[in-house]
């Protein structure tokens, strides 16, 4: 019976490692929540602890409706709204534009198809961060600072979605487009009747990845939005943690709850649509 005993010991080890890993992932956020459930005075004196307080509703109220800064426009509600616009706008824009371009490249006989391909896919090579200043200047010149267009469109200027849909379209059997042509479907009909419904799962997967990516943008929103009414949650948090400095009683409860609100929508989406998310992630980046 020594075999089964040894086996059990190794299982204990496996589970221990996984439990430690899971705790490392979760505990920091539990800590945020705990701090947000006590009064700021308590937190300032003791730091994070093990006991939850009853201050969550009070701090939630502050997080959602209190504003600071000059205009008083950066309430939690306003930032949540802006984050939603950025997340949805970016994901939808990227998917629509990417699908159209991928369709043109894969399903048409284009004379300059190869050129278009390279022009588009070169953008995969350079992330926004390395051309951030000139991008800022151009957005400024176009008068798009502090606008949703200025926030969203430059982020769309890379071909990840196009590349992903191109891969997917190429994996669809040739015969399908042939059957459709014999069935009398033109290019638009084929796209609407067949390709889009066939891509449903792929669209969902891509949407999750892109929504999370857009929602979590930091550098670009930091540069492009200076009006507090345009702040997203992720961008606004920095503002709030900075105001923590130098005040007598830092608002830990409010800022921690804002941090939790900022991670909640993308985290929930990733957890609930896990299989689509994993599919989108592992298939997109290839």
């Amino acid at each position, binding site marked *: 019976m020594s075999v089964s005993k040894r086996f059990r010991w190794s299982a204990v080890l496996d589970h221990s490692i996984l439990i430690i890993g899971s705790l490392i992932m979760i505990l*920091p956020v539990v800590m945020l929540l705990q701090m947000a459930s006590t009064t700021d005075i308590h937190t300032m004196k003791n730091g994070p602890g093990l006991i939850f307080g009853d201050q969550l509703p009070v701090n939630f109220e502050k997080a959602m409706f209190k504003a600071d800064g000059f205009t008083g426009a950066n309430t939690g509600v306003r930032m949540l709204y802006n984050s939603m616009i950025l997340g949805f706008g970016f994901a939808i824009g990227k998917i629509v534009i990417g699908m159209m371009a991928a369709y043109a490249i894969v399903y048409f006989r284009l004379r300059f198809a190869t050129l278009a391909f390279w022009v588009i896919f070169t953008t995969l090579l350079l992330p926004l961060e390395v051309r951030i200043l000139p991008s800022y200047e151009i957005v400024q010149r176009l008068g798009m600072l502090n606008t949703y267009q200025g926030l969203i469109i430059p982020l769309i200027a890379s071909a990840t979605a196009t590349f992903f849909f191109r891969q997917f379209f190429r994996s669809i059997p040739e015969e399908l487009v042939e059957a459709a042509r014999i069935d009398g479907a033109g290019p638009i009909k084929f796209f609407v009747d067949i390709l889009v419904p066939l891509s449903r799962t792929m669209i969902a997967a891509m949407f999750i990845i892109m929504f999370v990516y857009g929602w979590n943008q930091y550098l670009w929103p930091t540069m492009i939005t200076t009006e507090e009414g345009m702040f997203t949650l992720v961008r606004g948090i920095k503002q709030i943690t900075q105001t923590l400095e130098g005040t007598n009683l830092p608002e830990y409860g409010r800022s921690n709850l804002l941090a939790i609100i900022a991670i909640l929508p993308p985290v929930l989406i990733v957890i609930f649509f896990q299989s689509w998310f994993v599919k989108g*992630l592992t298939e997109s980046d290839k």
Partner: protein
Amino acid sequence: MKRAGFSNRWLPILFLIPQLAIIFIFFYWPAAHAIRSSFYLQDPFGFGETFVGLKNYTAMFNSAAYLRSAWFTVIFTVIVTFLSLSIALLLAVKADKVIRGAKTYRTLLMWVYAVAPPVAGVIGLILFDQSWGPIKDFVALFGWDFRLGVDYFDTAFAMVTISVWKQLPVNFIFFLSGLQAIPKSVREAALIDNRSASGRFWDVTFPLLAPTGFFLLIINITYSLFDTFGVIDTVVKGEPGNNPMTLVYKVYVDGFRGNDLGGSSAQSVILMILVLALTIFQFRMVERRIHYT
């Protein structure tokens, strides 16, 4: 292209125009602009510019601050990549092995993917807080007087810890799906050929994961270079001072805060070259085929 593609002339162009327009305005134009600016010296008050050739570049490579930042970036990238890859691999191998609770572990280990880097930075600020940070208190037990934002090494340590924490889920997801893609028959064959579990891992599983690992290597390097911006910016609270900073952060600080457009553009160009080299290296390796197809 599909062999039986449609032959309309204008429709595909119509479909391509939005993508191409955005790319030209917000990719090629700024990229070209950055390259051009790197050869000019801008007047800080906005009155014109002068062509200075490679001066921005020579100034950059002679700047102690730049070299320091470059060194830090290299070390930071190596450590973050190595740690997040190896810890994630360990977790993925275990998560692939256990039967009970496999799904729960998977969820618990991957959700942090959706946490924005600056929020991770905020969490780090609390964990390493000067007065009561839990990690600070913990290392104090070993006599380590941790000073975030004051001590160069301590600050770098916090940056690495937070960046690794944030990057674990991505690596975990890829390693796990890579492991699950290994055919059952191959595992069974290995089970018959080799009685040692660690032997099986290093001889069979690990080589079969090599394509995933290589792909992740590139992803992690890119992550360490660019996506850690949010972490670093929150940890230094927007005031770099003498704290460690990565090259991307320096581009931002010099250009956006310091108004040194020429110098910042030169730094951007160097980064572009770096990324291009990395990508070409990646394509080369893919061509050489670490894949086993």
